């Protein structure tokens, strides 16, 4: 009785399985090409949270928007400033006027022409507080923007600002059409970038098409799809089965598992840095000896090795290649537990000290392991570190309010040191509360750095900034890590960048073309 039933059952299940797999032949491939007709499918764990360039901070949003929109300047693979929508520029003698000559014949994706009016409108609206643009502070030195003719824009500054041109390369300062409203752009992006907006399925995928009118030459990829696969391991599976051709990971283990199956994985050092932030405005961290004790008690290479499997480099404050800090330029270049104990004693804590730290969970792979290792190392120097693991919402709340003694953080870096640290370590910087440290010397150095245009002189100034930060142990900088770009074998022409930008998708192609 039961036997006959189960036999029939087995037959039915087998038959329907065959039927279903047969059906797959028609519509989209169940396990085949990475895209149809030479296009590329990128796997991402979440969808862009906004399509407005001026408000985008999430890296998935930035990755999509930099394909759609253009900026006045751009960065090349070495993070040097190169022309973008501004073909050339001239900085006046005193550095307070920048005259930019705009590229001719550029159009937005809806066909309207790009000219100086769009530039003035965009820059003015970004500077307007009501817009809520996240990079408004980058234009703090700009007092006026004028368009003497449709092909020229003149920026008047309150003082020389050597970091401005690099800052203008950010998609947060993208050029939008002068007559566009936020509403319209949120529905249908309209930019001057190498790709145009084709389709969007909320929280599932966003598809772009090559822009044949792009001033840099039409991209080789006819279509570009950012597909949401919420789980990183599932993205690896998608790479292995050939459904996805491109993905970016920050977890070395995930990258290793992707590599194991024939996908090409390229590792690129990043500008972002892992750091133990110290709140020097709160006792006991307001005492320099305590901060130096912490600095001397930590072996940064050990943190890197245990938390991130050695995938990265020990670093000082400044991470961009042109201005890179010397990681050994600090009071304790190597771990020195004796020195740490001496500093603690000098601060009056010979019997030991207890501190707390906040660390986020789920934001990036190594956060908690870093905290655990730091805790173990500090314990050997007589410092007890209590770890508070917080879910990302709670962590951000505390971080933003500077409600912590110390914080294990991964902060983004920028190519220009003024852009990177000006907002943290100057007394007027909008992130100074979070940084927890200022000094008149730093203020003076930053002002000098902004005003100097000679690259060699600037490098010298920022080395002094870096030295000052380390000598005063404002924070304990740990290491920079890699980003891993996984591509299917037939994907060529992509160059990863140290700031995480996917700009070179415009030169990428699929298949032997």
């Amino acid at each position: 009785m039961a036997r006959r039933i189960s036999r029939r059952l087995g037959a039915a299940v087998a038959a329907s399985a065959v039927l279903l797999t047969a059906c797959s032949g028609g519509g989209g491939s169940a396990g085949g090409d990475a895209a149809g007709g030479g296009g590329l499918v990128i796997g991402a764990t979440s969808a862009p949270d906004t399509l407005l360039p001026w408000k985008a901070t999430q890296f998935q949003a930035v990755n999509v928007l930099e394909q759609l929109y253009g900026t006045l300047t751009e960065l090349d693979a070495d993070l040097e400033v190169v022309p973008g929508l501004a073909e050339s520029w001239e900085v006046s003698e005193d550095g307070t006027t920048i005259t930019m000559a705009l590229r001719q014949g550029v159009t937005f994706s809806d066909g309207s022409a790009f000219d100086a009016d769009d530039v003035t409108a965009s820059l003015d609206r970004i500077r307007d507080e009501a817009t809520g643009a996240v990079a408004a502070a980058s234009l703090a030195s700009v007092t006026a923007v004028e368009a003497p003719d449709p092909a020229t824009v003149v920026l008047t500054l309150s003082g020389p600002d050597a970091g401005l041109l690099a800052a203008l390369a950010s998609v947060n300062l993208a050029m939008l059409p002068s007559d566009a409203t936020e509403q319209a752009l949120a529905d249908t992006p309209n930019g001057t970038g190498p790709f145009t907006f084709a389709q969007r399925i909320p929280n599932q995928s966003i598809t772009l098409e090559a822009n044949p009118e792009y001033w840099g030459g039409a991209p080789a990829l006819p279509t570009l799809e950012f597909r949401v696969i919420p789980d990183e391991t599932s993205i690896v599976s998608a790479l292995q089965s050939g459904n996805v051709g491109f993905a970016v990971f920050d977890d070395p283990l995930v990258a290793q598992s992707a590599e194991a199956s024939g996908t090409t994985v390229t590792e690129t050092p990043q500008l972002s840095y892992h750091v133990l932030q110290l709140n020097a405005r709160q006792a006991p961290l307001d005492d320099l000896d305590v901060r130096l004790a912490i600095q001397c008690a930590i072996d940064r290479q050990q943190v890197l090795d245990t938390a991130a499997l050695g995938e990265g480099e020990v670093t000082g404050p400044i991470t961009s290649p042109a201005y890179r800090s010397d990681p050994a330029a600090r009071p304790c270049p190597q771990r020195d537990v004796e020195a740490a104990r001496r500093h603690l004693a000098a601060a009056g804590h010979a019997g030991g000290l207890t501190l707390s730290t906040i660390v986020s969970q789920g934001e990036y792979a190594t956060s908690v392991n870093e905290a655990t290792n730091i805790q173990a190392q500090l314990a050997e120097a007589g410092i007890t570190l209590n770890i508070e693991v917080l879910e990302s919402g709670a962590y951000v709340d505390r971080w933003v309010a500077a409600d912590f003694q110390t914080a294990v953080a991964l902060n983004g870096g920028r190519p220009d040191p003024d852009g990177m640290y000006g907002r943290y370590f100057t007394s007027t910087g909008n992130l100074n509360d979070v940084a927890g440290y200022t000094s008149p010397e730093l203020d003076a150095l930053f002002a000098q750095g902004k005003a100097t245009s000679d690259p060699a002189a600037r490098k010298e100034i920022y080395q002094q900034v870096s030295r000052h930060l380390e000598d005063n142990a404002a924070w304990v900088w740990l290491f920079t890590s890699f980003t891993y770009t996984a591509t299917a074998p037939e994907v060529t022409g992509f160059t990863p960048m140290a700031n995480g930008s996917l700009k070179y998708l415009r030169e990428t192609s699929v298949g032997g073309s």
Partner: protein
Amino acid sequence: MTTLVATGLPAAATRRGLLRRTLASRSGAVGAVLVGVIVLAALAAALGLLPHDPLAQAPADRLSGPSGAHWFGTDQFGRDVFARSAAGAAASLLIAVVAVAIATVAGTTAGVAAAFFGGWSDRSVLGVTNVLFAFPPLLLALALASAFTRTWLTVAIAIAVVYTPIFVRVARGPVLSLREADFVRATTVLGFSPLRTLARHVLPNIAPIVIVQITLSLSWAVLTEASLSFLGLGTPPPAPSLGAMVLEARVLATVAWWTMAAPGAVIVALVVGLNLLGDGLRDALDPRNGGTR
């Protein structure tokens, strides 16, 4: 299915017989062994009696397979997987036991009180239970776990809230019928205080069903905690937790199968053991098998 009895019997006699009867049944015995082994390992981990420290990292030995030195191999940081699994089992058991204990006490009290006293207390308890039942359980646990600073206790409380309604229902049903039973009416006539009636006559009668429900809920609680950890909302790291271990090991599945197999096997063994134990208990408590009578 459970027949009601007027328990004039001293409880101790039935308890000893209960244990023997449970172990006599095949499922009960297997379940008890499985759970016993895991509990022993977990205790050893909690008391630090294991040969390896679950948190000690040894990068030189990373990703080595099961061997004499490391029974379940090592993970990506060189930590001993057996020690971590045992510690993870301890964490899961702790959370499950605390969660079910809270749910049992809260749920049974509310259910018994609601049924016994009736009226608006019954209606309000039922109302709250309906609300909690209408809420998708995993999402409820998820939301609760996200709401507060995550410690093992808040995770346990979140799971307790999800399973309390079941105990309310399990306890309330029989008590409703019990209330009408002659011997209970008799105690009211005799002037016994409600508390005494509840303690001596009502609770012992619902005890069997509640006990079975406890073992079932324990197994669900272990699974829920593992699922929460998998979604990143369980016991915060670096304390080992079985679900989090499976989550981390997914990436290593093809390179080091033991990192996923070990915690997975422990989860399965624990849940199977608890269920079998529950089956054995149910058989032992069924009057047809010579249970409470």
